[in-house]
């Protein structure tokens, strides 16, 4: 009988807390979204699995000595993983559309309004008894509006490590929900005539311009905004690997093997932050709500900026492309293309939307640098 009791004690069953069970369901929910609904599967799948692993009683995955604990400490709390991902994203990004039409950077800038406006929302939530966000927490939450996973994780690991799990899940969920969140906002802010506007074909960009571009971005950042250089620097490094054409092996590694390996570890590490005591709080609900607000405001401000630019520009600018200013590459640009095609079946906006789309990546990295410089530790 005693042996049976010992055996019973060694199973998980007597040690389960109901909160851990809920978190495991959250993990399974993320797996469902990734596998069945194909929502950002590359990240939601490891995050979901990490969430299940970390909530197993007795296994101690996320306690000192556990695998996920070390992965988190090595890669996420140091900020290394998101930066390596950013390097890979840089190596996958083609800036041609932006270099051909540099004004699109203004759309990428306007869409960052969502980030800064959400700061107010986070602070106003403090009026309710369940919330107690500091300005650092608010900044880390607001960056969700940048719709850029690595940037959000990087900033959260520096400003609000306790909220990292919820912020990362919110950021990736909203990026996956771009096709659902953005179109109604885009339609509400534009007229059918505006959505039909065709745009002039982009000029051909030379290889030399593509090589000089990341170097120019790097020089500007290191002079004006050194706090953003970890993100922007790695991004530019990856992009230079791709564009210079003499280190194809390194470029291929950055955009394939390395980013894949890091994605696995980053996902698991983020999943390990989805423990019951950190995730099952009112703050998580607040973060999810604020993330949606940030994202929507960002989309709206991008579209409004594009409308303003269209009014003062001699060339047509279809206001829809402003919505792509919230990075989420390339999903946001595809959504713009789709909404544009609905209005005018001959109007392909994909390449035009890629300009603001990659500008949004730079914009959100710059915004993260500003927040880090102004409210950072």
């Amino acid at each position, binding site marked *: 009988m005693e042996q049976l009791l010992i055996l019973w004690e060694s199973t998980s069953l007597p040690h389960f807390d109901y909160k851990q069970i809920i978190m495991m369901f959250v993990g399974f929910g993320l797996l469902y979204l990734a596998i069945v609904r194909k929502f950002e599967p590359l990240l939601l799948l490891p995050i979901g699995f990490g969430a299940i692993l970390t909530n197993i009683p007795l296994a101690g995955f996320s306690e000192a000595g556990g695998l996920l604990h070390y992965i988190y400490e090595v890669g996420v709390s140091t900020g290394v993983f998101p930066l390596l991902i950013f390097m890979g994203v840089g190596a996958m990004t083609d800036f041609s559309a*932006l*270099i051909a039409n*540099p*004004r699109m*950077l*203004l759309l*990428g*800038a306007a869409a*960052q*309004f969502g*980030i*800064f*406006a959400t*700061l*107010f929302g986070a*602070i*106003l939530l*403090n*009026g309710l008894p369940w919330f107690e966000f500091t*300005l650092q927490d*608010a*900044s880390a939450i607001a960056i969700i509006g940048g719709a850029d996973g690595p940037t959000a994780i990087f900033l959260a690991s520096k400003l609000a490590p306790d909220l990292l799990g919820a912020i990362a899940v919110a950021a990736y969920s909203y990026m996956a929900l771009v096709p659902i969140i953005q179109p109604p906002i885009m339609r509400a802010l534009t007229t059918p005539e505006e959505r039909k506007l065709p745009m002039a074909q982009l000029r051909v960009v*030379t*290889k*030399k*311009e593509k090589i*000089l*571009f990341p170097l*120019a*971005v790097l020089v*500007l*950042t290191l002079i*004006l*905004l050194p706090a953003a250089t970890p993100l922007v620097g790695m991004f530019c490094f990856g992009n230079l690997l791709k564009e210079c054409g003499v280190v194809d092996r390194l470029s291929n590694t950055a955009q394939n093997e390395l980013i894949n390996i890091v994605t696995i570890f980053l996902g698991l590490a983020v999943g390990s932050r989805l423990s019951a005591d950190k995730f099952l709080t009112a703050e998580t609900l607040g973060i999810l709500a604020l993330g949606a607000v940030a994202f929507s405001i960002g989309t709206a401000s991008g579209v409004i900026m594009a409308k303003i630019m269209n009014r003062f520009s001699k060339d047509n600018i279809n206001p829809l492309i402003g919505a792509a200013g919230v990075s989420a590459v390339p999903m946001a640009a595809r959504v713009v293309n789709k909404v544009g095609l609905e209005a005018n079946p001959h109007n392909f906006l994909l390449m035009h939307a890629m300009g603001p789309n990659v*500008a949004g990546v*730079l*914009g959100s990295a*710059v*915004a993260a640098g*500003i*927040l880090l410089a*102004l*409210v950072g530790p």
Partner: protein
Amino acid sequence: MDTQMTDQLIEAGVLLAVGMSVVFAFLTLLIAAIHAIAWFCRAFPSAEIESPKSHQKKVSNNTSSTSVRPQIAAAITAAVHTHRHTTLRN
């Protein structure tokens, strides 16, 4: 609304103003940088685009001197070849 929240809201307002100004200023500078790069690339075209032009120029310059353009040389060779064939037959 207590004073702490008011202070935080003011701070958020300052962040909004400073943040958006810096983002716009930075990206506007980047627009200028891209234009500068485009101008630079137009003024000093890269070697691989330049080489066929310079090659052509060299060839056209050389026509004034004793050397013969390859197309003309090929034509002359073909003509001589045909001429020899016809004279041999006759």
